[in-house]
């Protein structure tokens, strides 16, 4: 009989399928339902943003897509296969600030996932250089994180998420700790990188403006138990520009999301 691993996945690389997923946190006193019956399809190459009030389980959902947490019920597949544990060849993850290793230089941080897998030093360095170049940090590889600005640190994090060239990039409020200007610039940078690489991106944020500005699709979630309450298509043309922020189309999308969130808050 043919071993299961040899069967070619039916779904193309980069597709994410979430089916009836639930998550229950067991505490000593009670069980908290964090997510309930969440289903979601992300097509390869799409930029999908998850928004919702604090405690709606959007980060939890992202952690489950990353294989960092297992759902209590339902199934999640990435590129057609379940993800029982983190797999950087399939999924890159970018966290909030401060997830760079402060004792390593920028390029050593980017090389880290390759070093874990025993990739040869020269190969590692070359791939880290490519990734740093992609995020616009050519020439900053020798610096330590404390010598970089907040925005530059997040660029390094993105480079680290991309260095193994996974088809999916998951981002958990990556720009939350940045100031407004840097945040806008990083948004544009991310869109440029996304356009250049064609990755599937799932992006968690609190910011409605950021959500509409970046996304092809916005998924709105309700607080505990976390459910999907709306799924918006953002048909604004690309490349997105600053002027769109004050347009009617942008405003009505943002209002629609806000109404959901206000209702549940």
């Amino acid at each position: 009989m043919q071993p299961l691993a040899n069967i070619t996945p039916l779904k193309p690389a980069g597709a994410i399928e979430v089916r009836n997923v639930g998550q229950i946190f067991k505490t000593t006193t009670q069980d908290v339902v964090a997510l309930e019956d969440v289903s979601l399809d992300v097509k390869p190459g799409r930029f999908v943003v998850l928004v919702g009030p604090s405690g709606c389980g959007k980060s939890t959902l992202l952690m489950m897509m990353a294989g960092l947490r297992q759902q209590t019920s339902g199934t999640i597949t990435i590129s057609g296969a379940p993800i029982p544990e983190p797999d950087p060849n399939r999924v890159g993850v970018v966290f909030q600030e401060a997830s760079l290793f402060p004792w390593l230089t920028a390029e050593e941080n980017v090389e880290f996932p390759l070093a874990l897998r025993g990739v040869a030093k020269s190969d590692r360095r070359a791939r880290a250089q490519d990734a740093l170049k992609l995020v616009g940090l050519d020439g900053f590889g020798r610096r330590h994180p404390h010598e970089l600005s907040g925005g530059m640190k997040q660029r390094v994090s993105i480079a680290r998420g991309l260095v193994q060239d996974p088809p999916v990039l998951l981002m958990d409020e990556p720009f939350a700790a940045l100031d407004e200007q840097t945040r806008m610039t990083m948004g544009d940078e991310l869109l440029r990188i996304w356009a250049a690489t064609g990755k599937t991106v799932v992006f968690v944020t609190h910011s409605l403006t950021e959500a509409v500005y970046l996304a092809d699709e916005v998924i709105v979630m309700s607080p505990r138990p976390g459910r999907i309450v709306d799924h918006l298509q953002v048909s604004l043309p690309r490349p997105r520009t600053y002027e769109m922020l004050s347009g009617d189309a942008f405003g009505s999308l943002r209002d629609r999301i806000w109404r959901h969130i206000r209702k549940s808050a």
Partner: protein
Amino acid sequence: MTATTLRRLIVIGLIALWEILPRAGVIPELFLPSLSSTLAAGWNDAGEYGHALAVTLYEVAISMAFACGGGILLGAIVGSLPRPRILIMPMVSSLYAVPLVILYPVFTVWLGIGSESKIAFASIYGFLPTMLATAAGIQTIDPQLLLAARSMGATLSQRLVRVIIPAAIPTVLSGLRVGGALVIVGVVVSEMLISSAGIGYLISRYRTILDSPHVFAGVLLVLAMAIAFNAAIKWIERKAAIWQTGSRAGQRAADEITAGAIQPAT
């Protein structure tokens, strides 16, 4: 004038005063022999001091290995597992407030007045701050770093070697600084109390015969030892922790430990 030059001038001034004041008769030679007579006393009995220094250094080295090795090992266990932490930490913290030197006579009963009792006493003396600092260092590691490592597929042992150990180094080093200093204190003090060899013994013996220059020659040697140790730790810190500026959390924990360690030496 920079702070460094000022500091050097102060040190030079103090050394000069040490020479001038006793010579001028402002301070009796019995209380403070002049620097030159102290050095001469040390030089004339260089063999005796050399032998004593060898004994003391041997005791310090062995105690340092026990205190630091044991402190880091136990601190790592206590810091990473919540259950032993709840059990052990309150005990260790209270023990830390006890002047451990009261135990030294007991050690001499158990182990005799040779090096063994000094090593036992100094090891325990230096062990506590090292262990507390290591436990704090492990506890204060940013969980986000471990999560990030896991997302990149790091196994448990890879997380230990590549994340937990490097992240804990700054706090562990500051624990070693305090622990190591206490080891030196422990060895010298116990030599001064009950022993038959070592610098502490020499200081104590010359004091009973009121030979101040020889007492101060011993004091100088202890001083030199402490300064050399401090310089060595500083050098390691510089080598190992260029990123310290980026990790204030660990540093703060280390400072708390260091502040807690300022207690009477005996």
